[in-house]
């Protein structure tokens, strides 16, 4: 038996093909999914969008698992050795296929993937390290709250409130914001930011940003934009429940936007180039009654996911043989 690709490279090819297919399907389906998604309450919408952002990667991983399922099942002691049942095929098999073939195409493929992953990990790692450093410096320089942990007041002429950090997010509020807002408005802003802190929304966004890399770029931007909006709206809802005044939260958002705009520039010169569409959407959302959470939908999605997985496992042989055919792996 000779294989151009070992098991690792073959699995990588299957992963990439499945992920690319899922990415195309996702791009086609996303516009149709928007309307039903908008009817979900923001917290659940954010969860769905986070799951959607990972679809290509999940699809790739699932197809690789299904492709290798027959040999995994055999390896666990269940079922027969499937390799004897199709003598004309080479195998994508954990038992018989070498992990690496040593061929030039394989080296090129794995080298490219490895370098890309390493470059990405280096960039992300550097960013994470630097952000942690900057955050700790700001917490040390700011006036820490004696009441709330990881809250800090930053002396600044710009009005802002930020929750930054992933595992231990910190809330940074500018002195200008505290000066310009009424106590009830400050309380609203704090409730909103504390919701981000509790939900670890920075971590969600980082996860979405990372796993969505396999999406088509335009679709990816739309998904991440919608996710960001859903996350902000989820925290707006928390702030509205806290204050008992949805219109008050909306008014605070507009007031703070106006304070930033009044400076003649946005709050920051270096920042994501998003328009202010989110502000309008958030205010419009708060003008409507709160959407009722429907946990049944999440349960239905879980059941659907489980059924699809079972169906995939039941058709494991088909996936296995299709993948082998796709890769044109044949016995000599």
């Amino acid at each position, binding site marked *: 038996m000779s294989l151009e690709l070992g098991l690792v490279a073959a699995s990588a090819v299957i992963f990439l093909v499945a992920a690319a297919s899922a990415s195309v399907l996702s791009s086609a389906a996303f516009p149709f999914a928007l309307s039903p998604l908008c009817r979900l309450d923001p917290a659940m919408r954010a969860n769905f969008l986070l799951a959607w952002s990972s679809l290509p990667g999940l699809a790739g991983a699932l197809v690789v698992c299904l492709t290798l399922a027959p040999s995994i099942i055999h390896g666990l002691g269940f079922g027969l050795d499937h390799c004897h049942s199709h003598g004309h095929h080479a195998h994508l098999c954990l038992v018989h296929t070498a992990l690496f073939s040593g061929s030039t195409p394989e080296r090129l493929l794995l080298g490219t993937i490895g370098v890309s992953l390493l470059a990405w990990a280096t960039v992300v790692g550097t*960013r994470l390290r*630097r*952000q942690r*450093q*900057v*955050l700790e*410096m*700001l917490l*040390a*320089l*700011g006036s820490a709250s004696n009441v709330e942990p990881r809250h800090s007041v*930053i*002396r*600044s*002429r*710009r009005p*802002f*409130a*930020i*929750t*930054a950090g992933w595992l231990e997010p910190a809330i*940074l509020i500018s002195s200008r914001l505290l000066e310009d807002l009424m106590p009830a408005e400050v309380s609203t*802003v704090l409730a*909103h*930011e504390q919701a981000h802190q509790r939900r670890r*929304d*920075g971590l969600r*966004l*980082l996860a979405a*940003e990372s796993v969505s890399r396999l999406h088509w770029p335009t679709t990816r931007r739309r998904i*991440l*934009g919608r996710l*960001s909006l859903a*996350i902000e709206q989820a*925290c707006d809802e928390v702030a509205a429940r806290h204050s008992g005044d949805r*219109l008050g939260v*909306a*008014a605070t*958002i*507009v007031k*703070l*936007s*106006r304070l930033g*705009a009044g400076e003649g520039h*946005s*709050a*920051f010169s*270096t*920042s*994501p*180039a*998003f*328009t*202010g569409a*989110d*502000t*309008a959407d958030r*205010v*419009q959302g708060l*003008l409507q009654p709160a959407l009722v959470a429907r946990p049944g939908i999440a349960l239905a999605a879980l059941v659907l996911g489980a059924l699809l997985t079972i169906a995939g496992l039941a058709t494991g042989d088909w996936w296995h043989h299709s993948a082998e055919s796709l890769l044109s792996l044949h016995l000599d």
Partner: protein
Amino acid sequence: MPLSVGFSRDVENRLTIGFSQRILLATFPLLRKLPVSTLSRPYLGELELAVLEQLWRGGALDVKTMHRRVGTSRGIGLNTIQSTLERLFRKQLVSREKISHAFIYAPSVRREELMERLIEEVVETFSDGSTEPMLTAFVDLAARVDAENLSRLEQLIAERRARTEDDDS
């Protein structure tokens, strides 16, 4: 001892921004047009922050006074304080002047200035220059909502509040 005795301040600054950055500058001359603060993104440890804090509070100080105020309580030697001040000088966060035989250090950035720079960096590094908003903020930090739109939103809120109050009464 200072690295740059005998050099002008400009040369001194360039000498102290780091070897790797000098290679970078030599490779990409256009980078010279950027302000030095854009190139050097200092990380300040706990001791450096404490020293800066002391300079902000107490104004210009020499090494011995700084040691008395910051070092003694921490059990830190005079040399450590001296090298900390040297590092801050290299990072262009303090300036120094030689009076008699001792350097007198003074903060060259205000606390607010440093904080603003760091906040900008938080926004910049969290967004990574990309178009995706990766930072959770009460109001989109990059939002460019024009005044007309804000007025329209305020009007909508006012109308809704009036309607709600009418319904209540």
